């Protein structure tokens, strides 16, 4: 059984480069792939520009954002000891989204360059910090969840207000589309801006892996195993905020990856919340990349937003959870 799990994880890892190639071959324009590959990324040839400046950064961004969201979800679930937890639950995504919406509100979004992602990361940090201050010292998981729900509700109200008083139809449309999440028209700039934050977040989460393991047995036992004090939850919260905030900053709010992915891979890592981190990063990257391939090959008058695709994956997943729980399965 253990070996089967390793094989399954190996297959997932092997599928990622294949999906990457499929993503590079996908798009509204047919390009001469082999020629574009040979011409190199400095070439001015239109096929090479499409491959190296449009498709490659977009595919890599899908991998990076998917990994950040999968890992963030795994960390949240481990920290809150709750399989229904998601970064969105603690207001991390909403905090990032609100900061971005304020820029969109004043029509400054894409002119502002680096400000959009930077403010979104800041928003995620402020949201997660507020949750932490609200929950107080030595907060139990249930208090943390409650604080997250409260912050999230407040941020949603602010977002509704921003939509309500949007200065123009155009601004409103921009906000709505941004909230749907998208990887379209993203380039190396966005990728390179998100990368250091997601890497830093990933390192913080990796450093917290044994704390997550100890939390399997509850907070009292975790303290008795040497994980007392604020620095352990704080490192986790900062790691989540950095990774998820940076992902939301460059791709908008893409839901359900952080919820679905840890569920799918948990049996493959024998339920270990520490190994779940990297397994969820891998599977999240694969899932978002495949969702983007679907988006790229979807023919329609309007561009299909990737957030809408992941939402279609997420809703049936909840139904499946309910059905399996009613059959006596563990949630």
């Amino acid at each position: 059984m253990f070996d089967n799990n390793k094989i399954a994880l190996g297959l997932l890892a092997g599928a990622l480069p294949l999906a990457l190639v499929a993503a590079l071959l996908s798009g509204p324009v047919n390009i001469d792939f082999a020629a574009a590959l040979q011409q190199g990324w400095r070439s001015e040839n239109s096929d090479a520009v499409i491959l190296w400046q449009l498709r490659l950064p977009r595919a890599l961004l899908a991998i990076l954002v998917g990994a950040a969201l999968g890992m963030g979800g795994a960390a949240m679930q481990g920290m809150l000891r709750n399989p229904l937890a998601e970064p969105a639950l603690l207001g991390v995504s909403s905090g990032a989204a609100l900061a971005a919406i304020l820029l969109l509100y004043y029509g400054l979004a894409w002119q502002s360059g680096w400000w959009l992602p930077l403010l979104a990361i800041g928003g995620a940090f402020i949201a997660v910090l507020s949750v932490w201050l609200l929950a107080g010292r030595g907060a139990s998981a249930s208090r943390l969840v409650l604080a997250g729900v409260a912050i999230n509700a407040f941020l949603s109200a602010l977002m509704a207000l921003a939509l309500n008083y949007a200065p123009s139809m155009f601004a409103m449309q921009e906000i709505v589309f941004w909230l749907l999440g998208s990887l379209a028209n993203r380039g190396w700039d966005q990728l390179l801006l998100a990368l250091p934050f997601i890497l830093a977040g990933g390192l913080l989460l990796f450093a917290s892996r044994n704390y997550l393991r100890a939390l399997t047995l509850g907070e009292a036992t975790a303290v008795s195993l040497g994980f007392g004090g604020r620095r352990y939850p704080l490192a986790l919260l900062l790691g989540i905020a950095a990774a998820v905030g940076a992902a939301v900053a460059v791709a908008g709010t893409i839901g359900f990856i952080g919820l679905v992915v840890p569920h799918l891979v948990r049996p493959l890592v024998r339920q270990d919340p520490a190994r779940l981190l990297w397994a969820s990063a891998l599977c999240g990257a694969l899932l978002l990349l495949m969702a983007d391939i679907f988006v790229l090959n979807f023919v329609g008058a309007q561009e299909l937003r990737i957030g809408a695709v992941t939402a279609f994956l997420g809703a049936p997943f909840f139904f499946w959870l309910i059905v399996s729980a009613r059959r006596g399965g563990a949630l």
Partner: protein
Amino acid sequence: MTLSADVTCRELGLLRHGQRVLDDITCAFRPGELTAVVGPNGAGKSSLLQVLAGVLDASGGTVSINEQPSQSIPAAERARLCAFLPQSELPSWSVSGADLVALGLLPWGRVPDRDERVRTALERVDGKDFAQRPVTQLSGGELRRVQLARLLVGQAPLLIADEPTAALDIRHQLQLLQTLRGIADSGKTVVLALHDLSLAARYCDRVLLLEGGRLRAQGTPRDVFTPAMIGEVYGVSCEFRWRDGEAEFVVFDLI
């Protein structure tokens, strides 16, 4: 590395939600001793154990381990000194029995003979069969035995367990107390909260009797378990029959 733990509590007090749950507790736990903390529901047994284990900070007084104030011991070092099993410890993920037991080795980092230790610890609680089973599929008593193996798997010289026999059948209760007796005899300090006074009388060297957060009596089971004392604290009439230093406890009725 410290191989023994000499624990002293001086004038220990604890306030929780404005209520005084521990008041002026002065006692000691020595290497080689198996101590039972007994008392009626709400007497403060769990609170005392949590303060000893460093899970709760005392509001007053001190706990010292080997004459070093407990609060000044770094968390990682304290975790290697003291292993703690809370009253209820529901695992949040359905890891296998062996993986749950291995969590008890976290304070020691990478342990070369990890699998061997886990196997031995499971054998001590008669739980070899649980190694590969998901813990959510175990019964209450089976899960408790896996958790006890988690407590026993490390090398901490101080073991604290809150009602370790709850949910165990009678055979495994006796087996567990015998195992803990052996661990204490090997020089470790063992502290248990127990409801079963017969087990406490039979296996433990010392008894702390708590009532309303205060230490009502302490000493050998024979000193503490007198019909008068048990009658006052628990409100039952009883008799202890002592045979070769071992005791059986018979409850007759409510007073």
